[in-house]
């Protein structure tokens, strides 16, 4: 009697929750989908990326055609986002600037994640003085005032790089390198903490016992397991890098005036606030919306990839 009543629910439960062929990634995607705002963020981010990639093909007004008869106009059919003080079409400039802003964010994130992972991995694998020295360096970089140093480095080096590889590429390389170079520390600390716990786990010990070299242990066994938090940190870094680039451009010290990044458009607009508010509100909202979406995606990824650390 007891056996029959017990057996049927278990049997049906086993039937419903039969382990489908769910890989860790499918499991992560299931968890990510449950975070609705993260999903919305991902959709908005996809739309923004699509717009800046394909938009310039569809909207072919030039970004630098000066037309004083149409200056400082509000949104209209001819200029859906209005024009600036030289009569240049804002939609075309926004689409072009978005490419640069997103590219800077992604490239700086890649630099930060690569440098951070290497530093963190070396510190996590080696004990003693190497670990201590690398962590001291990380702490030192964390306590540097980033914006003043960014400004100082760009001020000192932009001239030489401009002469070397041209204005736009030179500034791009410099900004990406410097922003990435000041954002690797959180990744390094994360990776080190992960390595310290993972390298003592049984599966790593098993790999070691089978004769895997330290490099193979790191690349095949430890790193894939430490990846979750790194992906989350990398996502947030994209947002931070976009803000950093916009800040530099907003201070008038980032890209030159003929490269309309979102921050640069905002910088040009800030002296015309009283009669052309749309000019400032549009790029600002674009930055805000992109950063907010990335932050929500990061939040969703944390739920999906780092289930232990749900706050």
């Amino acid at each position: 009697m007891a056996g029959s009543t017990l057996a049927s629910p278990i049997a049906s439960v086993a039937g419903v929750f039969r382990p489908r062929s769910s890989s860790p990634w499918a499991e992560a995607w299931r968890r990510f989908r449950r975070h609705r705002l993260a999903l919305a963020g991902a959709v908005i981010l996809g739309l923004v990326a699509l717009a800046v990639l394909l938009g310039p093909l569809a909207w072919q007004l030039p970004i630098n055609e000066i037309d004083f008869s149409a200056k400082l106009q509000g949104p209209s059919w001819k200029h859906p986002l209005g024009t600036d003080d030289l009569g240049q079409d804002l939609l075309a400039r926004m689409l072009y600037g978005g490419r640069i802003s997103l590219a800077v964010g992604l490239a700086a994130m890649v630099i930060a994640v690569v440098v951070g992972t290497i530093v963190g991995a070396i510190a996590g694998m080696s004990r003693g003085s190497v670990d201590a020295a690398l962590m001291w360096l990380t702490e030192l970089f964390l306590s540097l005032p980033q914006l003043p140093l960014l400004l100082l480095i760009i001020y000192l080096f932009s001239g030489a790089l401009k002469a070397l590889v041209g204005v736009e590429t030179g500034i791009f390389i410099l900004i990406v390198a410097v922003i990435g170079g000041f954002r690797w520390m959180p990744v390094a600390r994360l990776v080190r903490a992960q390595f310290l716990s993972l390298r003592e786990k049984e599966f790593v010990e098993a790999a070691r016992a089978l004769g895997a070299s330290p490099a193979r242990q790191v690349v095949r066994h430890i790193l894939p397991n430490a990846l979750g938090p790194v992906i989350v940190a990398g996502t947030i870094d994209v947002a931070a890098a976009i803000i950093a680039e916009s800040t530099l451009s907003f201070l008038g010290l980032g890209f030159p005036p003929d490269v309309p990044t979102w921050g640069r458009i905002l910088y040009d607009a800030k002296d015309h606030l009283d009669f052309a508010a749309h000019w400032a509100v549009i790029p600002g909202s674009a930055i805000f919306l992109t950063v907010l979406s990335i932050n929500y995606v990061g939040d969703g990824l944390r739920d999906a990839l780092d289930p232990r650390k749900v706050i």
Partner: protein
Amino acid sequence: MNQYLLRRLLIVIPSVIGISVVLFTVLALAPGDPFEELATNPNIPAEVRAGLRAKFGLDDPVATRYFRWFGAMMQGDWGFSFASRIDVDTLIWQRIPVTLLIIGSSQILALLIALPVGVYAATRPYSIFDQIANTLAFIGFSLPTFFTGILFILLFSITLGWLPFVYRADIAATGWLWYWEHFKQALMPVAVLGLFQGAALTRYVRSAVLDVIRLDYVTTARAKGLAERAVVVKHVVRNALIPVVTLVALQMPAVFGGAIVTEQIFRVPGIGSLLISAILANDTPVIMAVTFVFSCLVILFNLAADIIYGWLDPRISYR
């Protein structure tokens, strides 16, 4: 406690040296020559230029130059501003009080927002209040300071006309009116910085309180029959503050970055706007000195955080 203080103070020394090495390396690696202008000037013969270089020791080995520069920085001899024609230290001492005032008030505002909101949200996790607070915090730290500043100017200065959007150091009014004018013009910069900081801190406070509130000693306090208010304020918050203090200190570099932006938007005459105008005017001594001052301020705040840390959690100072 004294030993702990001494140890923290000793840690400051390598930090200052490390930061000064980073700064000097950047300067030394930079292309260009301070006497470049003289080189292109046909009226100055080559031997005068060589004499000047020798006089200022530009041809010495890097190490010698570093020690001379560091010694001068430590003694307060920060050079002469090309643009303003006065000593750099005079210039900086004129500008620093405004910056510290703005940063200090905005930090207080941030804590006044973050502590109550974060604690209240954590005592009722996943309630409506928690969700609204969380969403607002997300929006708050996704809004870059320069955009909030512009929105504030649009709303409060241009549309409503309530607040001035240019910070003036020379207010003619006297007495209470003088204070009122200063309060009015500082309101927007402080709010921009404080709201941004507050948004980030709210999330930290919430998660720190959530970590603590499930611990056994909190249950014990409740079981003793203490009022919920006493449990939260006396037992939970003090322990939850420990990680928050670290995070406030870690945020300091970002706060200074935000201060530079806000000072630039509202034209506050602090060291942040001094840095920007110095960069636009190619005024290298001022740029170096301001960056150095910012670094020292960060170290100072870290030290303060460590001391508060030791006071909040006496176990740390005896370790």
